[in-house]
């Protein structure tokens, strides 16, 4: 797919995110916008997921370990034409679009997540199952840099290395912010690269808003045949919406009507 096409999809995904969170007056726009390019790339270029296999586990799978950015997952599934839900019901009672994703209610959601750290551990189990079944499917998990403060992440990393899970690709969404502020101030989890290397990972980095850079990072994953991979994706929380960019206040709050207009205007054109 041409870069421009990917940009169009990502821009459309961002609009859906803003729209969902605005309509619900609840949700997590900052991280959703920040990882929008990576997850768009995953679903449009990287994973073998389509209408034909979405209900099956016989394909690549994605675990949204940072489950609070559910608007991003729903928006991408919708953009891909896989979602059978009304995005405007997000976070409302009787909706399948739960605040944090539920795998039993939405086709294409491969794991129920929300409690940080656990998705990464579950992804390790899925990759282990693929090894056991001797299939070629890959498992991807998106985790936050703040999320890497959870201890289970390191247990999962140890196991991924121990079981030689070269079919596992973690993506660290490095936006430097968590609810209470800068990650370095709240509880410094750095250095990321050296930690992953010490745990035996194939470590690569990318600009999380440059599709060529993202593509190269996944190539590095494909070329690895022994170790699990982590892509450290440098991102801007709130990317695309001027007043949300790099502002942790937009981790988990919804825009008002005026802010919504500004946001949609910011996203009017594909940049």
């Amino acid at each position, binding site marked *: 797919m041409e870069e421009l096409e990917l940009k169009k999809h990502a821009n459309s995904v961002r609009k859906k995110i803003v729209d969902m969170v605005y309509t619900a007056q609840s949700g997590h726009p900052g991280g959703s916008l920040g990882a929008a390019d990576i997850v768009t790339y995953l679903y449009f270029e990287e994973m073998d997921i389509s209408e034909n296999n979405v209900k099956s*586990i016989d394909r690549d799978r994605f675990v949204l370990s940072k489950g609070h950015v559910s608007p991003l997952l729903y928006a991408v599934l919708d953009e891909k034409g896989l979602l059978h839900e009304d995005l405007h019901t997000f976070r409302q009672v009787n909706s399948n679009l739960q605040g944090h994703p*539920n*795998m*039993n209610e939405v086709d294409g959601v*491969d*794991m*129920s*997540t*929300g*409690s940080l750290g*656990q*998705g*990464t*551990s*579950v*992804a*390790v*189990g*899925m*990759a*282990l*199952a*693929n090894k*056991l*079944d001797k299939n070629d499917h890959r498992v991807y998990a998106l985790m936050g840099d703040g999320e890497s403060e959870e*201890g*289970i992440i390191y*247990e*999962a990393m*140890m*196991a991924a290395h*121990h*079981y030689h899970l070269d079919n596992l690709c973690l993506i660290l969404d490095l936006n430097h912010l968590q609810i209470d502020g800068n990650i370095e101030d709240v509880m410094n989890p750095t250095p990321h690269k050296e930690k992953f290397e010490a745990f035996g990972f194939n470590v690569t980095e990318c600009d999380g808003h440059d599709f060529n850079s993202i593509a190269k990072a996944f190539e590095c994953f494909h070329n690895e045949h022994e170790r699990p991979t982590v892509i450290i994706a440098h991102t801007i929380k709130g990317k695309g919406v001027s007043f949300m960019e790099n502002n942790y206040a937009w981790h988990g709050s919804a825009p008002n009507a005026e802010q919504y207009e500004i946001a949609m205007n910011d996203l009017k054109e594909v940049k």
Partner: protein
Amino acid sequence: MAQETRNAYGQALAELVKENENVVVLDADLTKSTKTIEAKKVCPERHFNAGIAECNMMGMAAGLAASGKVAFASSFAVFATGRAFEIIRNSICYPNLNVKVCATHAGLSVGEDGASHQSVEDVAIMRSLPNMRVYVPCDQYETKAIIKHVADTYGPCYVRLGRGKVEDVFDENTTFEVGKVRTLRKGNKTALFAMGLMVQEALKAAEELAKEGIDATVVNVSCLKPLDEEGVLNITKDFDTVFALEEHSVIGGLYSTIVELTSRTKPLKVVPIGINDTFGESGKAKDVLNKYGISAEHVVEVVKDTLK
């Protein structure tokens, strides 16, 4: 004969991995204690050691189950249900994944290791989770039946197993209807509902009580959830006072299970005989159990006192 329920678990699991290639086994560095090593001997490629990392073990079990496997995950009850509680809640029970948490070394009968290793609350916390089924077998034969049953029953299950040898209640010819309460002795004065190793104590107590003219029904409750409500009410309808016997805290275990049901119907006095909101301590299993009132002698006393 006497046998550890954890031993029976290991044997059942070894059979299971042979029969069903979808079964995978996880452990957290306690394979020789939980006896999952028996499954590893038969099928090493489907046995995964998570190391001393119970949380990740449960997460991996969830991932394997989300990939179509029947995942058995074992550790000591304290760590399996305590340390890893929230992984069981959010990554196993909420998505309703096919993971069987089979925890050994439950209760005070752990003995010498003391309170840090004696789980007295595991049934309470597992029972409180939506989608979770809870089983407490009383001997080796029932353990094997329950392990087979949970392997064939989709969804999260908790099986509580013990460290020490327990006398056989059943034999190799016994057929089990897992999920139903089972009357082991019929009496007309009262009923002793028991789980786990308290079933053997209840039977001994009933013998003693009979000598003193108190004829007690003894009921094995090995499936705490979903509870065989009809079966329990069929027994309680004949009595004004019954007893709930457990090697578990009186908060949230068998006593609570019975009371939660019977308090909805006719007035019934239910007397708890269990661990009274306290931690245990080190000692020989028999000594610890005696000290905390988990014994036939104590049951006889309480029943006589209550009914006099």
